[in-house]
């Protein structure tokens, strides 16, 4: 069976600098994979290359096959049919990822309307409205009606990220890309969002590409992980193997840092 996403020799150059070099990995349907690495290691670049939305001044070479469609070098209007269908993205910064002048309900309604149109050939206002409230409920937002009628600045950061997740779920993508979805949130909210995301991905059976620089966070939700530094893949494997026997010093430092953090919090290692 061919993979849902297959990346071969992906190289991304921006401003004369190689920010991702010769990256290869694949994700099967329903599989959950993590991409970890410190800030600036090229995680977001990799994610955006998969959506085909990198600006034209950034050069992408290699091959990215998503749901049977080659992404690299394909015209935007063909790629647009994949977006929201094959992939959806949850971003790091929940405030800037929502249109400040559009009510939350309306922002979620747009992808819902497109999906219903695509799946059923029609999307009535009532059906869309019902589904929007359903989604808000699913991401455990209190008072869905109130939230739907609110503007992004009128809800909290954690709630905004739930909204962003609802927007991504609205598409029912085959692959959900979560680019550091909890980094901008406080620790308690982080744990909640992570649990929510984990539950939803398992429930719907979609594949997940989870990006983070935070090792314990990644370990919680994914099966397989790839460690990235300066755009180069250092190692890849099952979460347990990579973290228990890091074959690379860099991974070891990430593991140590996470352990020290846990000890500082008085938690015992898992």
């Amino acid at each position, binding site marked *: 069976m061919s993979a849902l996403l297959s990346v071969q020799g992906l190289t991304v150059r921006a401003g004369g600098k190689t920010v991702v070099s010769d990256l290869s990995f694949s994700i099967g349907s329903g599989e959950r994979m993590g991409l970890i690495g410190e800030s600036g290691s090229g995680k977001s670049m990799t994610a955006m290359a998969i959506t085909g*939305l990198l600006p034209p001044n950034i050069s992408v070479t290699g091959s990215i096959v998503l749901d049977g469609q080659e992404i690299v070098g394909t015209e935007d209007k063909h790629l647009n049919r994949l977006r929201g269908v094959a992939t959806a993205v949850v971003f790091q910064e929940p405030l800037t990822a929502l249109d400040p002048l559009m009510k939350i309900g*309306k922002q979620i309604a747009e992808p819902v309307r497109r999906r219903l149109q695509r799946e059923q050939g029609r999307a009535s206002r009532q059906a869309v409205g019902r589904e929007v409230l359903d989604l808000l409920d699913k991401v455990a937002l209190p008072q869905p009606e109130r939230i739907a009628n609110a503007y992004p600045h009128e809800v909290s950061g954690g709630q905004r990220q739930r909204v962003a997740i609802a*927007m991504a779920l609205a*598409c029912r993508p085959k692959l959900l890309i979560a680019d550091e979805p909890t980094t901008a949130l406080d620790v308690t909210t982080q744990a909640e969002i992570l649990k929510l995301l984990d539950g939803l991905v398992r429930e719907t059976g979609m594949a997940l590409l989870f990006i983070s620089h935070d090792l314990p966070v990644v370990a919680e939700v994914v099966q397989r992980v790839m460690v990235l530094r300066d755009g180069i893949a250092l190692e890849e494997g099952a979460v347990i193997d990579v973290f228990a026997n890091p074959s690379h010093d860099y991974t070891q430092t990430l593991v140590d840092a996470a352990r020290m953090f846990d000890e500082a919090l008085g938690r015992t290692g898992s």
Partner: protein
Amino acid sequence: MTSLDLSTDRPARRHSLSLSIGLALVGLNVVVAILTLFWTPYDPLNASGGRLEAPSWLHWVGTDRLGRDYLTQIMIGARTALIVGTGAVAIGASIGVTLGILAAFATRLLDDVMAATLDILIAFPTLLLAMLVVAASDSASLWSAILALGLAISAIVARLTRILAKRVLRQDYIIASRTSGTSWLGVVAWHVLPNIWPTLSVNFALQFGLAVIAEASLSYLGLGAPPPNASWGRLLQEAQGTVYTAPVGSIAPGIALVALVIGMNLFADGLRDVGDPTRRRSR
């Protein structure tokens, strides 16, 4: 219970003093302009009293050199001003916004060319540009003045739209929306236009005021609406010779002009305050 408002309408406007005063002044102008379609105190074209009469109960603002009622002409001037402002802004907005959005999406080279062309056009004083257009058309008419002012406004609007749209297009929520499958056309309709609208509408209101002044200036110079259309600019020009003997003739249309322009500017100010829901922290 499951009533969900998916409509595009903006939230209810917060009360704002400048918005209220502005609306009142502009509203008065609109009411008077519409009224003149059905009724004026006197016949605007024929004498209804003595020449250059001072204000009286019969002629509140007096009469002109030919004995025609001044108030009647000022009222009709309100209609002319409104037509000019609305027409010029409508032309300027439709051409300007379209060009500006196209420029924001254009390739680097095309964008540079458009930006430079707009800068050159804007460097021309609006009035001079308008005079050239009016002079180039065979006869001075209200419509050539409107077209000329509309073209001048379109350059300003295009430049503003281009800058605003580019700023919006760089925002994360555009990428976020694109990742969910929104087409570029959808991005323009749902995100770019609504997000640049608060700033654009303020600019439209300001341009409206400037267009009214420019038309008055054109008329004052004899390049505006020809005689049967009363224009405040032409009233001012005709009253020029009698400014010492019958000052009301110059003062009255001047006040009307200033009131409309100030009203429009206050309206613009008010719009700026209420246009952006993120700035309304009243809850």
